């Protein structure tokens, strides 16, 4: 795979690493924008499928970037995307974790924490909206998305069961 693509992956995901306030899923819309809309590395459906694969696999959700990197540029792409997505934020976290205690209970620390919450929630909702539009192409698919969300919100059932049931619906040709 050409070095230009690897460099592009490294650059895109390093930026994402540093703006992923509230976790990896909050940059889902931006990943989608970059990977599908800007670079055209894959279709929206393929993006949604990789995301589903990452959600169904064990491990941190952030590893969806490994799959994206792998899809775009093979094993090297997976390594580069993962390192770029985790590296910059880890260095920052390491540095800040050493001094954060000093600001315990200060007013601006509380303001940073509570100020970022509403933005993070907005990013989460935007991620849900966009991944739904990418994943669902029929009304039964939208129904599964809605039903899954409702069940997750109202019960403590493990998500893997829902993935299994949804996969079965798919196998039966209903989606």
């Amino acid at each position, binding site marked *: 795979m050409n070095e230009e693509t690897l460099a592009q992956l490294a650059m895109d995901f390093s*930026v994402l*690493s*540093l*703006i992923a306030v509230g*976790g*990896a899923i909050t940059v889902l819309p*931006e990943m989608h924008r970059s990977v599908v809309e800007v670079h055209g590395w894959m279709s929206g459906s393929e993006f949604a*499928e990789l995301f*589903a*694969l*990452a*959600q169904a*696999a*064990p*491990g*941190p959700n952030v*590893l969806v970037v*490994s*799959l994206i990197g792998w899809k775009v540029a093979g094993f090297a792409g997976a390594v580069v995307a*993962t390192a770029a997505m*985790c590296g910059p*934020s*880890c260095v920052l*976290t*390491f540095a800040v*974790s050493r001094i*954060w205690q000093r600001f315990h209970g200060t007013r*601006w620390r509380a*303001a940073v924490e*509570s*100020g*970022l*919450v*509403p*933005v*993070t*929630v*907005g*990013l*989460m*909702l*935007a*991620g*849900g909206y966009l*991944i739904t539009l990418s994943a669902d192409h029929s009304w039964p698919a939208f129904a*599964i*998305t809605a039903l*899954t*969300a*409702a069940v*997750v*919100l109202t019960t403590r059932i493990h*998500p893997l069961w*829902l993935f299994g*049931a*949804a*996969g*079965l619906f*798919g196998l039966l040709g209903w*989606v």
Partner: protein
Amino acid sequence: MNDTPPYPVPGPGELFVRFTQVAVSGFGGVMPFARRMLVEERRWLSAEEFTDILSLCQVLPGPNIVNVAVCVGARYHGVRGAVAALAGLLTAPFFIILALGALYTQYGHLPAVAALFRGVSAAAAGLVVAMGLKMATSRRLRSAMALFTVITFIGIALMRLPLVVFLLGAAPLSIAAALWRSK
């Protein structure tokens, strides 16, 4: 952070092994498993210490659980500890997910697998929708600050603004609003 940890200090090897165990048992989110391991099983952190570390890791950019691993590792062995915990968290799942990806590339074109994945993708999307809604209905958002949630949704989901540009404008405003409200 704490000069006299009440429990034996884990070595880098143990950090690696424990975070690997946490990572491979966490389907659809690793944080609950990490909390159980750190607070209840190993007792490396008290519940308050965990909450404190988590709130820092949520404010900082990057995957929350990855940041937690860095903080916990760094607490015991500096850079070495951070690298050990991080490597434990990521290595095994990285190879598992690539193996799944390879299987998917191999068999994804089969009609049955493609049909199965249409269902699973729809459910995975529902999981994100649920996470968003759960956060949106939490107590911390019942104030005028929720306006920033609406603005973010419109800017990112509907107008498709680049995130960097959007955050440079919205994050300082939102933090300033929170600071003003705390007066």
